């Protein structure tokens, strides 16, 4: 690397660190009560005039204020006309793993190699990322930080977005292993004179076989004495004892069908399909195997010329209609910065036919269930973590997604960001002119 470039990047990194991030909020010490708001529970129900009490980081009461009379506790936040939502969850994201798309030095999203279950996203997660911080004013408060690349990309962890460091941030460490299922189509090796277009992948069977072999070897290793340590094989243990989920990134009908047969063959119980562009075609199979889908971002263009113009908008609805458990994920081009638009992606699904509260589930309770977080997150129900926010209006519509308060485990977090700071700074500049 040329010195010039090196200095350039060094400069970039220094700059990034020169702005202080928002300071994480302290642990909740006092109870508080939110009164009068429309509570969107996240399980499909709405309470028009609610009372919600938070104690020790948990929701202790969430009820209809008109029918349930409970004594308010601690500070009372009067929220008439406002809306409360459970914190939105962004699964399958690289937030905190890269700060600036074009600056390689900031990139910690992928490792070389093919079978990388031992690669763990959590330790690279930058809790002080300015991009992560920008999620919060839109209500996105939790993310599944997921590595990319390879056949098995690595192991993800689930974090909350108001933390000093990655240990602080972690909600669920090493929750799942991510597998990129072989593509049905592959690109010609143009440098060998083959046509560069996508044609049926001749190596598909071989690639699936490599996976079979890797799983079988992992199992054999784990059954053995493990005298000679193998990091890759041992990292697979959670899949077999059910403590970790296998997230299979697959889009087409055939790939999903093959992937499910593969997991059944190897006795992998906890499986999620990520992407699932054609998942609705195998809805019965998904239901039979109780496999949830993290559906590809709705803000995307249809893959094929013939596809309905609104196909990506309604993909999640097609799955919900058939009784499949489905959440929304946002991987793809500019995935980190645009993760804050997750609520509007859910709103877009509602525009194209899904009930609004069902659409809300795509980024709250359904995702929590898929990630195995539903005991503590995803709805505004008693006993769950007080990770929630208050919005001036409908949080799935950009005009009214205006947050006044946000809480993570009952801690009231700052809604300021690098961006709001600049906004204020320059607004003030012009005011004083």
């Amino acid at each position, binding site marked *: 690397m040329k010195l010039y470039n090196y200095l350039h990047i060094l400069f*970039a990194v220094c*700059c*990034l660190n020169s702005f202080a991030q928002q300071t994480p909020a302290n642990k909740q010490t006092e109870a508080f009560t939110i009164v009068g708001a429309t509570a969107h529970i996240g399980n499909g129900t709405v309470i028009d005039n609610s009372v919600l009490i938070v104690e020790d980081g948990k929701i202790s009461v969430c009820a209809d204020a008109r029918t349930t009379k409970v004594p308010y506790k601690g500070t009372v936040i009067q929220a008439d006309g406002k809306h409360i939502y459970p914190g939105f969850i962004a699964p399958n994201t690289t937030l905190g793993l890269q*700060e*600036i*798309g*074009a*600056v390689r030095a900031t990139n910690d999203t992928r490792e070389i190699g093919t079978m990388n279950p031992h690669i763990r996203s959590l330790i690279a997660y930058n809790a002080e990322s*300015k*991009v992560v911080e920008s999620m919060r004013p839109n209500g996105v408060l939790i993310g599944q930080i997921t590595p990319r690349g390879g056949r098995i990309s690595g192991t993800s962890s689930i974090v909350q977005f108001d933390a000093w460091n990655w240990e602080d941030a972690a909600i669920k460490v090493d929750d799942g292993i991510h597998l990129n299922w072989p593509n*049905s*189509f592959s690109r010609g090796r143009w440098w060998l004179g083959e046509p560069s*277009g*996508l*044609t*049926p992948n001749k190596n598909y069977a071989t690639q699936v076989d490599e996976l079979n072999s890797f799983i079988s070897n992992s199992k054999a290793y784990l059954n053995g004495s493990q005298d000679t340590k193998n990091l890759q094989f041992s990292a697979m243990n959670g899949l077999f004892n059910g403590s970790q989920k296998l997230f299979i990134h697959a889009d*087409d*009908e*055939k790939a999903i069908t093959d992937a499910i047969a593969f997991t059944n063959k190897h006795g992998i119980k906890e499986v999620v399909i990520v992407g699932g562009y*054609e998942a609705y075609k195998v809805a019965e199979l998904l239901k039979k195997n109780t496999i949830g889908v993290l559906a590809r971002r709705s*803000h*995307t*263009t*249809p*893959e*094929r*010329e*013939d596809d*309905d*113009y*609104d196909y990506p908008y309604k993909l999640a609805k097609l799955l919900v209609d058939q009784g499949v458990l489905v959440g929304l994920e946002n991987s793809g081009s*500019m995935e*980190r*910065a*645009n993760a*804050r*638009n997750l609520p*509007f992606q859910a*709103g*877009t699904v*509602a*525009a*194209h036919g899904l009930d*609004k509260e069902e659409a809300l589930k795509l980024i709250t309770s359904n995702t929590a269930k898929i990630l195995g977080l539903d005991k503590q997150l995803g709805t505004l129900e008693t006993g769950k973590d007080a990770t929630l926010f208050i919005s001036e209006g409908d949080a*799935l*519509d*950009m*005009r*009214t*997604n*205006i947050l006044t308060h946000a809480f993570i485990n009952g801690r009231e977090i700052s809604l300021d960001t690098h*961006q*709001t700071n*600049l*906004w204020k700074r*320059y*607004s003030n500049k*012009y005011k004083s*002119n």
Partner: protein
Amino acid sequence: MMFVMSFTLLAQEHFPKNDGVSNENTNYTAFTNAKIFVTPTQIIDNGTLLIKDGKVVSTGTSVTIPKNAVVVDLSGKSIYPSFIDIYSDFGVEKPKRPQGGGRSPQYDSNREGFYWNDHVRPEQNAIEHFKFDGKSAGDLRKAGFGVVNTHLQDGIVRGTGSLVALLDSGNDADRILDSRSAQYLSFSKSVKSNQSYPTSLMGSMALLRQLHNDANWYAKGYSKSKDRAIEAYNANKNLVQIFDAGSRVNVLRVDKVGDEINTQFVIVGGGDEYERIDNVKATNAKLILPLDFPDAYDVSDPFLASVLDISSMREWNQKPANPKIVADNNIPFAFTMHKLKGSKDFSDNLMKAIDYGLDKTKALEALTTVPASILGKSNSLGSLKNGAYANFLITSGDVFNKNTTLYENWIKGSKHVLESMDVKDISGDYTFTVGGNTYDMSISGSPSKPKASVKSGDKELGTKVSYDNDWLNLAFTSTDDSKQEFFRLVSRVTDNPNLSGKIIFPNGNESSVFLQKSNKEADNKSDEMASGKDKEMSKDIVPITYPNNAYGFKTLPKQETILFKNATVWTNENDGILENTDVLIRDGKIAQIGQNLNAGGAKVIDAKGKHLTAGIIDEHSHIAASSINEAGQNSSAEVTIEDVVVADDIDIYRNLAGGVTSIQILHGSANPIGGRSAIIKLKWGEDASNLIYKNTPKFIKFALGENVKQSNWQSFSRFPQSRMGVEQLYVDYFTRAQEYDKAKKSGKPYRKDTEMEVIAEILNKERYISCHSYVQSEINMLMKVAEKFDFNINTFTHILEGYKVADKMKEHGVGGSTFSDWWAYKYEVNDAIPYNAAIMHNQGVVTAINSDDAEMSRRLNQEAAKSVKYGGVSEEDAWKFVTLNPAKLLHIDNRVGSLKVGKDADVVLWSGHPMSIYSKAEKTIIEGVTYFDLERDKQIRNDIKKERSELIAQMMEAKNKGLKTKPIEKKEKQHLHCDSE
């Protein structure tokens, strides 16, 4: 099998001869009793063709045959002029790309003393690279060709071609008919040089225009230095100019360039002309058409087949009808073997075109008279008129019938035998007895290459046959499978239908044998016909639509008079948002806005509960273009996106579904000075030229920052590499353009330079700049440079740090067209904030929100809504960010951008509030024509399902009939962005 009679060739009279006595042959050859196609339309039955010295002497029914004539009786046979291919690379090897070369782009040329651009190679002459290729010549003769025009298929200007007769005997002195027969051109670069420019189709087009200017300048003697390429170009000017376009859309582009440089090109098409035949016809160009019809896809795996689009399947279904459609439209065309592997493909596909309805006379013209006339050689080639070269085919009958045998291909009076006329046809069934066993033998196939099968009872025996010079050799296995033993049979074929000869037993014994021919010949023939028919496909051609893909129109939609009743109307004018209001559109304009309007004859749409707005306008789009960046130079003002608008892009339809009606297709951001824009309306179904706004202000893209200094990839040799350099580049170009403009206005001769013309238009306030920009320093800089040269920047696009200098922007008078919330993708967008639009707007800057993205552009209503969230802009103003304000920035607000009586009826009917996340566009109307309608879209979904199954069934049928298939290809939609090449 090939006999060449060299004696008919002319000896080269001035050459000394030391190997014998002089043997000049002055005999005539007369072909009698033949059906003679003197031309495709002048046909003589039972006539005589008389030739001498390689030329036709006469044809007719009463030709006097001189005494010194060799007479060939062709009773029952036909004579056709042999075929001509004028787009060939016969005997000229395509150059290979030299190995190596750095990863950093090369901006300069390799050559000295030639044009500055290595891809302009008019000085190349095919003749200097020509080496007669006997094998290919044989294959071409087999397909019926006698003469080809060959050239070096490399470069944008490729130099001259040569006309070559495909004689096997003699030498190049006999073969080369014309060593400078045409000049060839294309849009593709030479492989001999890595020089970057042009990296795009629009760059190739610009290069050809500039070359024309430079050649004129040179011809007038103004050039100070010697340029051998331009000299060659000028010398080639009067030749026929043959341009390889390669596709229907490029045919139109070639013709456009041709019109501008006063050249009518002969254009090599793509075989897809049928998709918009009227446009192709309007070029008045003669075409050269390849016959490369696609094979069916192998659709046997339904999973894989599901990725096929209707447009690719239609290509297979419709393309064989192209020659018929071109012919029916009276567009003159020649055929070429270009893109085909060999004579077999050519003959098969030619027959296929005829099966699909191509008239045989037109087909023959396309292979004879038309190519001859294109080259200006109608007197000597393409017909059997007196004095023409004796280039002709002798056939057993109709040359376009599958069962016809091509016997001989005569070129310049020299015979090439393809299939001996003397071969006795032995096909039929025979019975013979050997050693007490009776055998049945069946002979089929072509007369000279028969196939044989031998049976004993029902048992089929292994059989091998050869037939040569009247000798039949047959070997067949014995009935005992356990042994490896053969019977061998030889027979000299005579005029007697029965065969007799001898048979050699496995043990070496011999005996005579007699093969009795049965009389069932006629039955066999009809069987064969039947099995031949089996291979034929049903030709159910699906309808062509505009554009020719799943969402195209079968007939273009018409302008309507429409009355919207009781809508919520977002006027974008002083009236603001009107509830329960009627809007009447008529003659493509907004005719009336008010309460209780009279419908008259208008179509009434009940818009109660719905919202009617002006169509969305995207200031920064890269959809609907085949290239976006000309990255070969740091200034590319000479290129224009108008050259490369793609009317068939599915993203147009998808944008309409998002309520978008007008867009500016901007050049990319590869260069500080980019290319000119195309401002278009999304009139789905119309052709590219009808999309482009006429008589509107002109625009050019500029760019600043990381992209133009090439920060994010391996390129270190191009100026500028820093923002400091960017400023100086502008000062340099503007200064030069000033000087250019001064020279131009002085009345003295000046070298016409498109790039300088365009930059001078900026200085003369005739062209506006939309500048890609991010950080405040560079934004400030460009305003200062503009002020120094006494003009204003019109628009900063992206302008992500506009909020930091909004006051300066206001003062300068520049508008800002920004992203709603993009950031963090590059270092220079580190300080991008979603409040940018609000702050600029609050400071009085005309502010728009744009997409730069094919996905986001179909949700620009949502992007506008984000300004309500980020910075609290009022809904009415936020809505203007994607309608009226971009119209103002593009200077088209006199026509579009608001609902005002007299403006264009470019309107969208929304299911609800236009900025609600829950709303969708129900109808998108441009100038009173409904281009998107949710109801029609629903209908199309059913049609797609039906047509897909129909086409897949046809492809299954093709595979079952044993026709060739190819693997499925998954098409990828290339979404172009600023950074796209």
